[in-house]
């Protein structure tokens, strides 16, 4: 212990080493974060801060158009993105991870193959799918017609009823590698003797998955769910690429980040800064609030299961 003490850096030297990173972080992260909180409490004329208005910007968000109707709609779409991701991305990821865990052959190869879309830029992924789904030359509709499903082929991104589900599926296609890798790691760390014990007791593989593996995975499922919630709330590049900044068609793919972006930089409203900062703070509070509440609740569930 005393030898360790001699290796320590004297504090003044340590501070010197710390200085460049701390300065960069303070100027471009801490300072903007602190000022953002005050931005929403003032009224603005263009880029000039005017007077302290308290919660007026937040009230405006819920009482004046277009925010009054666009905010709940965008928020509802984010919630659907989350629900869709839980089903199409995390459940599929868990099942694929479980199947891969059961067999040793080509496990690494499949992990890498399934994770490939995760490594491409989300904006590129969004634009790629907008081309693949094109009603003019899109291979997706051509493929559906080729296998006799003419009735199913349609302008997927042009129809308000299907556009948001396209966003959900494209996001899931890109992100499935994330739950796959996390659940794969968790499965690898489980004690194999519990599986063997269940097998000796005559449990079928479905029973073993449902009654043995799944309860042991609950802490990881909780973590993945919270992260999925955060990512779904902050979804930006894929909706932007598929529906543009206005969430076309007819606002069917509008989400919170796009609403924030339009309000801050394209609304032309003189108080754009005040209102858009209020949008950002509402989004931030929802993310933090739900994440904390969910984590608490999930700890309770975990305790009951174990």
């Amino acid at each position, binding site marked *: 212990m005393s030898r360790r003490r001699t290796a320590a850096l004297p504090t003044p030297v340590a501070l010197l080493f710390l200085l460049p990173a701390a300065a960069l972080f303070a*100027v471009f992260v801490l300072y903007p974060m602190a000022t953002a909180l005050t931005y929403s409490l003032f009224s603005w004329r263009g880029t000039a801060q005017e007077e302290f208005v308290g919660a007026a910007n937040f009230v405006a968000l819920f009482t004046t158009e277009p925010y009054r109707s666009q905010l709940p709609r965008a928020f509802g779409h984010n919630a659907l993105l989350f629900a869709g991701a839980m089903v199409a991305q995390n459940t599929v990821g868990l099942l694929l991870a479980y199947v891969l865990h059961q067999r040793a052959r080509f496990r690494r190869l499949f992990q890498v193959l399934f994770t490939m879309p995760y490594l491409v830029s989300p904006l590129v992924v969004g634009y790629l799918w907008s081309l693949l789904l094109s009603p003019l030359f899109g291979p997706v509709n051509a493929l559906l017609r080729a296998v006799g499903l003419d009735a199913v082929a349609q302008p997927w991104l042009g129809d308000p009823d299907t556009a948001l589900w396209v966003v959900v599926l494209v996001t899931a296609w890109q992100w499935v590698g994330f739950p796959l890798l996390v659940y794969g790691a968790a499965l690898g760390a489980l004690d194999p003797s519990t599986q063997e014990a269940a097998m000796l007791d005559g449990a079928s593989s479905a029973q073993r998955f449902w009654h043995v593996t799944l309860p042991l995975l609950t802490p990881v499922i909780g973590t993945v769910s919270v992260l999925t919630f955060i990512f779904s709330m902050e979804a930006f590049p894929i909706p932007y690429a598929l529906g543009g900044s206005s969430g076309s068609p007819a606002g069917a793919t509008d989400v919170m980040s796009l609403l924030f972006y339009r309000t801050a930089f394209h609304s032309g409203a003189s108080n754009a800064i005040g209102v858009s900062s209020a949008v*950002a703070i509402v989004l931030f509070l929802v993310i933090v609030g739900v994440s904390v509440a969910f984590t608490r609740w999930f700890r309770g569930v975990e305790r009951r299961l174990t």
Partner: protein
Amino acid sequence: MRRPGPVLNRVVVNVVLWGYAVVALVPLLVMVWNSVRSDQELVSEPLGLPHAPSFDAYRAAWVEASFSTYFLNSVLVTVASVALSTAVSLLAAYALARSRSRLMAVIEQVFVSGLMMPVFLMIVPIFYLLDTIGLASTRTGLILVYAAVSVPFSVFVLATFLRQLPDELEDAARIDGAGPLRTFWSVLLPLVRPAVATVVVFRFVPIWNDFFYPLILVRDRASYTLPVGLTTFFGEYQTSWSTLFAGLVIATLPLVVLFLVATRQIVAGLTAGMGR
């Protein structure tokens, strides 16, 4: 009785795995082969393979659609910001790992809290900050912002790694009369290379792919990075589909190169703790 079960299972498992592999990969392959087909071919045979590969679309994207400019900007911004953030984070991580003052522990907490940054909250103040200091719409401004937001992750990974290194070598260097900077440079730097490789790769990818910061912070077309370039390009070349595919390939290609160069780090990072 038990026989057919496992065989059937194995068939189902293989169908599921190879089936999903097709779903994951074919869209990426279509992106590549549609970029070497002409627009007429794309319309007449949406499911066709390239007959006579043509690289006209790449020339159009690179020269006419200014992808050469966007590409160089992306390389410059990504390399400079990753280099800057890795350098300052390494110094900071050394200080945090080798000091035991209370103050340092508090500073480390502040850094780590930045792992969950609310980017939408920060972006408007950053926009006006850059404007105030004369860096609005410049690559320098973008480099500084990217370097700053990379600090939490880089410091976290590097400090964790440094704490696992035994400090005997540093003791020896100090006894031989080396100062802290000399010890850092000659003794630690060669040892932390694997952690530096991890940090570089894992910051390079999100910064190269990022679209949010330049969309808002860069208004001048000459300073656009590839992702923002792509958004204007998709507006202007709506009907030149093979050019659009070529643009997507160009934006993805450097990542492919990075993966080929650093497969080991990436697989190790992605599958860390995956067991066997």
